[in-house]
């Protein structure tokens, strides 16, 4: 049995969990290749115009997998924690996909933990049942998957790149060399949805580029959930969007980590992000004057313009630091 996973959206958040789980249930996992211009173009053609860039990319990946798989895994992730939602776009994702292209059978459990964390287990059982797995096998697979997911998050926290963290977590690459320590004493946080900053095409290799400039790069994954939770708990307003909360919490956590600059990377047309950008500026600036820049991308954004901004931002951060030293 072949289960296709489009390389987009929550793939960048949960892939090791999904892969480990399905393989424990004896299914074969097929992932679409890294985003290319062709995949993006395909997504842009099929998706509705007002969709944000990551959703368009996701459509492209779903189309790419097409019918070479038995199932396409597109969970309907409504909420992953009590009292908070994910992006509204995730809610209708399976239906919108089905409406716009011919797809293999969809495997799309609903995950809604807003009221009750245990709902997740119901979703897990539902998926396993669809694949014909019994309760014991399911339970064992799930435990292993959760362990892989925790390892993955831990490797990300230690500063491994996304691909490396995935293969380390899945035990595919035990001898990976540790990242060389950065050449410069400069730390920049790149904050944004993982499906933007980790994607090789729409993320413009920003993280690798900064690293090759000798910069130490932090992402929202560099902080523990507890660190982030502690930061957002003190905000006067509760945030109802889980992933935005992570970005904002990470920005605030940067204050404790000697971060020299913050780059927020967002998609044009993303409602949640446009609000969070303002909040970051307001809340971070109030505490300490960390240089901040917002990079907005869509499918027409040229790489040159973004890289010019990043270069200017690095210059600014480095000169500012040299001055205050």
């Amino acid at each position, binding site marked *: 049995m072949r289960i296709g996973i489009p390389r987009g959206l929550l793939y960048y958040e949960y892939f090791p969990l999904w892969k480990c789980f399905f393989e424990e249930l004896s299914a074969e996992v097929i992932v679409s290749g890294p985003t290319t*211009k062709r995949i993006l173009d395909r997504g842009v053609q099929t998706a509705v115009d007002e969709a944000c860039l990551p959703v368009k990319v996701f459509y492209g990946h779903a189309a790419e997998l097409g019918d070479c798989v038995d199932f396409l895994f597109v969970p309907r992730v409504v909420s992953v924690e009590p009292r908070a939602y994910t992006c509204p776009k995730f809610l209708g994702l399976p239906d919108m996909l089905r409406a716009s292209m011919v797809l293999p059978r969809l495997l799309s459990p609903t995950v809604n933990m807003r009221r009750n964390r245990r709902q997740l287990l119901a979703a897990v059982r539902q998926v396993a049942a669809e694949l014909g797995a019994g309760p014991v096998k399911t339970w064992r697979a799930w435990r292993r998957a959760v362990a892989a997911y925790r390892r993955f998050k831990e490797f990300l926290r230690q500063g491994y790149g996304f691909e490396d963290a995935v293969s380390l977590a899945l035990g595919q690459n035990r001898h990976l060399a540790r990242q060389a320590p950065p050449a410069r004493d400069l730390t920049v946080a790149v904050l944004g949805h993982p499906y933007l900053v980790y994607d090789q095409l729409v993320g413009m290799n920003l993280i690798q580029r900064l690293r090759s400039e000798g910069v130490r790069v932090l992402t929202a994954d560099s902080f523990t959930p507890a660190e982030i939770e502690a930061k957002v708990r003190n905000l006067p307003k509760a945030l109802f969007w889980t992933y935005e909360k992570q970005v904002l919490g990470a920005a605030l956590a940067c204050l404790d980590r000697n971060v020299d600059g913050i780059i927020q990377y967002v998609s044009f047309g993303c409602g949640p992000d446009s609000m969070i950008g303002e909040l970051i500026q307001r809340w971070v600036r109030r505490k300490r004057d960390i240089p901040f820049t917002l990079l907005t991308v869509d499918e027409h954004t040229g790489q040159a313009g973004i890289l010019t901004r990043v270069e200017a931002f690095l210059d600014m951060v480095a000169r500012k630091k040299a001055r205050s030293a």
Partner: protein
Amino acid sequence: MVREGGFPPGTGAMLGRTALIPSSLSHYVKRPERRSKPGSVHKDDKEKNSRDNEPGDAAMRKLYLGVDVGSVSTNLVLMDGSGTVVADVYLLTRGRPIQAIQEGIRLLAAQGWDDAQVAGAGTTGSGRLLAGVIVGADVIKNEITAHAVAALEMVPDVRTVLEIGGQDSKIIIIRDGVVVDFAMNTVCAAGTGSFLDRQAARLNIPIEEFGALALKSNSPVRIAGRCAVFAESDMIHKQQVGYPVEDIVRGLCEALVRNYLNNVAKGKEILPPVVFQGGVACNVGMKRAFEEALGVEVMVPPYATVMGAIGAAILAKEATGATGRTRFRGFQVASVRYDTESFECEHCPNGCEIVCIKMEGQLLARWGSRCGRWDTVPEEQPVRREASG
């Protein structure tokens, strides 16, 4: 509108320039504490300990070349070690950056500068990679940093830089001598110089006279519209209703300032001293419109239109300071044959458009790949020589 500034070093080049860019001299606000001669770029203190800056032995001066290649204009300057601009060239790029760069170098060479004097070269602007390869640059920098460095050189206590060029505009916020924030606009025409160029052409007014005309107006017409297209139709309407042309012209300057402040400068704290530079800065109508909107004095430095190139020259000086070596290929690059070729890479579905630059048929550089596959080029010629002055 090609102009060149071929003035013997140290003779107060600004005097010669007044005829060429009428507005930039009369509207450079001289600050009381700076009493340097016009045209020399202050830094009197540093001049004293700079051994190669004795007035008189101009031929022995070390010079730094700065090249700024934008989509609208290509600017070059030669600056000496003390920060004095000794020559500048402003050309239209006209979609042919290589020709513009070579023409600029040719105009500089025609003034009799010697290769051996050039101790460093820097490039900036959207064509900075190309320019860097052609002239042999020691430093290739983005335009934000270049503009900020130049503004700081001219007005050391500057806190806000407004820059409006033909095709883009920026704001740079500086505090205590370092850039702390910036923003760029490259998409919306209503915030750039091309907006004025277009309307000037429509009104049949040479763009050079635009600013002076705006100053004659006592009651500007309010031109509506955040977008160049709406503004244009509103302007046509106002024109047909019979408003005097100077009032319309002033209204256009105010509309551009409004658009700039609402888009590019949105949310930025504009504190004086404010420096206004870029191609549009020599338009006196724009300077006044900014002053009225901001309620503070707005300074237009000499050489306001070539500040990017000045910044590149300053950065070149910084970059070569430690080694004393330069990669500058010499003024002969003006007469060498450069070609560009491009092809679509077929190694993966990204299909990147790869651009190759060749000098006399020899491959110099390639770019355009997303993966870096084509970036390295078989070893380039070694550093040309030692620039010992």
